[in-house]
């Protein structure tokens, strides 16, 4: 494909429009012929060219021949999302790629991007053609699953210290226990978020509520309590109810976390997503806007990312030793930077983020960028 594009560029003396189109056409034709899985979405149908195909790296070439913008999902039997592609305009093509194990799945087209959609059942056949994973990779996934479960298990008692204090009406004790109760969650956030229904219950911020939701009734979880403790400075019956609810929702999380779908690439990209969390929510001080405990979350996100990286390191080092060396260096640099904001290097007592100046925040942001950019290349180093 590269050759086609390069030739086009030379011939047309930099007419990049044509070069891009040529490259694109060549690519989708080749894919279409070779892999042969196409999804034709119309306003009233969702046709899949094959109902049975081998597991592994699967590419679906979607063509929207309908009149509405559509979206296409691949779902597990229990409707968990394997992969999705939104905003496929009428008359346009799109491709979905994912690593999918053998089993039964649903492919769903949603014309107009609303409603239950039009569903097709497909079977991915397997064993031999399932994603070939080395023993090293299996070990990494198993160890990470263990880590995630342990983090969840250890979180519950810490949350109970926090919620007990709320139930006792002890404002100061509740404030003190707040940040620590979130560490396990923050370390494993991408996995926790993969259960789409738990995150909005426990970790949503007021501005994350949807249109029509009432903050007084529908806003639950840590940040609702954070606002009560730091801004409203009072604990009422409502906060005590919310403490009970937080216990209950997190207990549900602990039960489900072991069943999360984890692959080496999801671990790698999950590590990157943890840094994204830092870059978008913590560095700006938005996440913990009342308590200013952002640096605790920040540290926990980095620790979770580092855990994924450490577990994938044996695999990644074989494919891209330079990347691994760079990541080692950047993790160390960011941790050193974070250490400046805590006196005790074994504890989680960090400087309040409202005391962190503009120039210091810029320095933290630069550190996050320096780590997150190479970290985004870890998935490629794992599957190469």
């Amino acid at each position, binding site marked *: 494909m590269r050759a086609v594009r390069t030739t086009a560029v030379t011939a047309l003396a930099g007419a990049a*429009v044509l070069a891009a189109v040529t490259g694109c056409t060549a690519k989708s034709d080749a894919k279409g012929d070779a892999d042969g899985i196409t999804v034709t979405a119309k306003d009233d149908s969702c046709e899949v060219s094959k109902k049975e195909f081998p597991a592994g790296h699967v590419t679906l070439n979607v063509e929207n021949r309908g009149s509405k913008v559509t979206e296409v999902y691949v779902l597990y039997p229990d409707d968990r999302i394997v992969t999705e592609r939104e905003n496929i305009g009428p008359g346009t093509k799109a491709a979905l790629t994912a690593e999918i194990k053998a089993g039964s799945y649903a492919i769903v087209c949603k014309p107009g991007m609303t409603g239950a959609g039009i569903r097709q059942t497909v079977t991915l056949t397997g064993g031999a053609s399932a994603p070939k994973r080395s023993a090293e990779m299996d070990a990494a996934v198993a160890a990470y699953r263990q880590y995630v479960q342990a983090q969840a298990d250890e979180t519950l008692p810490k949350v109970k210290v926090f919620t007990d204090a709320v139930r006792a009406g002890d404002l100061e004790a509740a404030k003190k226990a707040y940040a620590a109760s979130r560490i396990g969650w923050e370390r494993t956030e991408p996995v926790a978020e993969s259960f789409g229904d738990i995150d909005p219950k426990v970790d949503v911020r007021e501005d994350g509520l949807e249109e029509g939701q009432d903050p007084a009734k529908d806003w639950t979880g840590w940040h609702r309590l954070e606002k009560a403790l730091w801004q409203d400075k009072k604990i009422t019956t409502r906060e005590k109810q919310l403490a009970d609810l937080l216990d209950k929702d997190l207990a549900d999380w602990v039960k489900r976390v072991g069943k999360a779908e984890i692959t080496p*690439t999801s671990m790698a990209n999950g590590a990157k997503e943890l840094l994204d969390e830092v870059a978008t929510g913590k560095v700006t001080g938005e996440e913990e806007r009342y308590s200013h405990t952002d640096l605790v979350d920040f540290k926990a996100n980095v620790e979770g990312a580092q855990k994924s990286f450490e577990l994938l390191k044996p695999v990644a080092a074989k494919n891209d030793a330079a990347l691994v060396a760079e990541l080692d260096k950047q993790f160390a640099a960011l941790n050193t930077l974070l250490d400046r904001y805590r006196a005790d290097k074994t504890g989680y007592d960090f400087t309040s983020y409202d005391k962190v100046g503009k120039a210091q925040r810029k320095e933290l942001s630069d550190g996050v960028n320096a780590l997150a950019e190479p970290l985004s290349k870890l998935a490629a180093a794992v599957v190469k």
Partner: protein
Amino acid sequence: MTPAPARRTVLAAGGGLALGAAVAGGTVALTRDGDATAPVADSGAAVPFHGAHQAGIATPVQDRLHFAAFDVTTDDREKLVRLLKEWTRAAERMTAGREVGEGAYGGLPEAPPDDTGEALGLKPSRLTLTLGFGPSLFDGRFGLKDRRPGDLVELPRFPGDNLDPARSGGDLCVQACADDPQVAVHAIRNLARIGFGTVAVRWSQLGFGKTSSTTPDAQTPRNLFGFKDGTRNIAGTDAAALDRHVWVGPKDATGGGAWMAGGSYLVARRIRMNVETWDRTPLAEQEDIFGRDKKEGAPVGKAGEHDEPFLKAMKPDAHVRLAHPDANGGATLLRRGYSFTDGTDGLGRLDAGLFFLAYQKDVRAGFVRVQTALAKSDALNEYIQHVGSAVFAVPPGVRDADDWWGRGLFS
């Protein structure tokens, strides 16, 4: 050159609506040029990256700017050298209208693409990327103390300066000029991305509406005060003037600074304009302040913008009178500034002005000389304030595919 006549027509017509029409016309042309049979307009062509001097200095001024200053965040000299090599290779590709690295699509689905992709399908748009080194790079972190050119001086503090450190200085700078803003922004974004972990963006500035011309037959574009300024700019085709005022000659580059031969020195100033108060100023006063008429841009008492000004006919504090080479011992700069507006400032005032860029072989004889006179008595000072400042040593051009930005400095 296609957009230039359109722009001139617009200016003659003098209407904002007409300007909109010109922009729309440009869009249509772009779309049509996607067709293989359409001729590639000059505005879409590629400017050669390799040469004795860096492109983006004498190159005819493009319509848009994205300028970025970087801090080097590593103290590892090798890592910085590696980055400069990577940047050079990426710049070669982007200025030719190609994607960075392995491109924007078609790679591993699990990994982010090398190129960010927003310039796919756009023409090279005369993109130039010009690199400079700030004085702070020579502070000893990279063993470059002895290589600092004697002519790379810090600017003195001028009266009236209100410089924001967060919009000033920088170890490195990259000036991206293109006729398409998306192409310029794409270039800086991708260089910043390649640089994460080695450099961090310190500040950056977007510019539109070039305020000076390096093309001899073109009219001088207007600044946001509605005036033509800098009509005596050095033409990019005037080799003798460039040698005299812009390019550092082999004899000028001595000792540790020998690597600067063929380079130039860049002064960047963010000049905020108080447009609201300016707009309430009577026409006669506006014209007196500049020393020109508003319609033609002609100097006081003359008819055409390029007519030789009679300085003594102007008020003693007129901008043209004070800035003119004749009033400054012949000091001449190559200017390629841009207008900017970064929205409003929270008080509802347009956060706008001139992002002044000037190249010269000697900053003291060039910008410092002129600005000393202006800062002291320019009538325009009531309406402007210098809020950002930086100076950079811009090395000579990258000669070929084996050469790289700064090789002379680091070898």
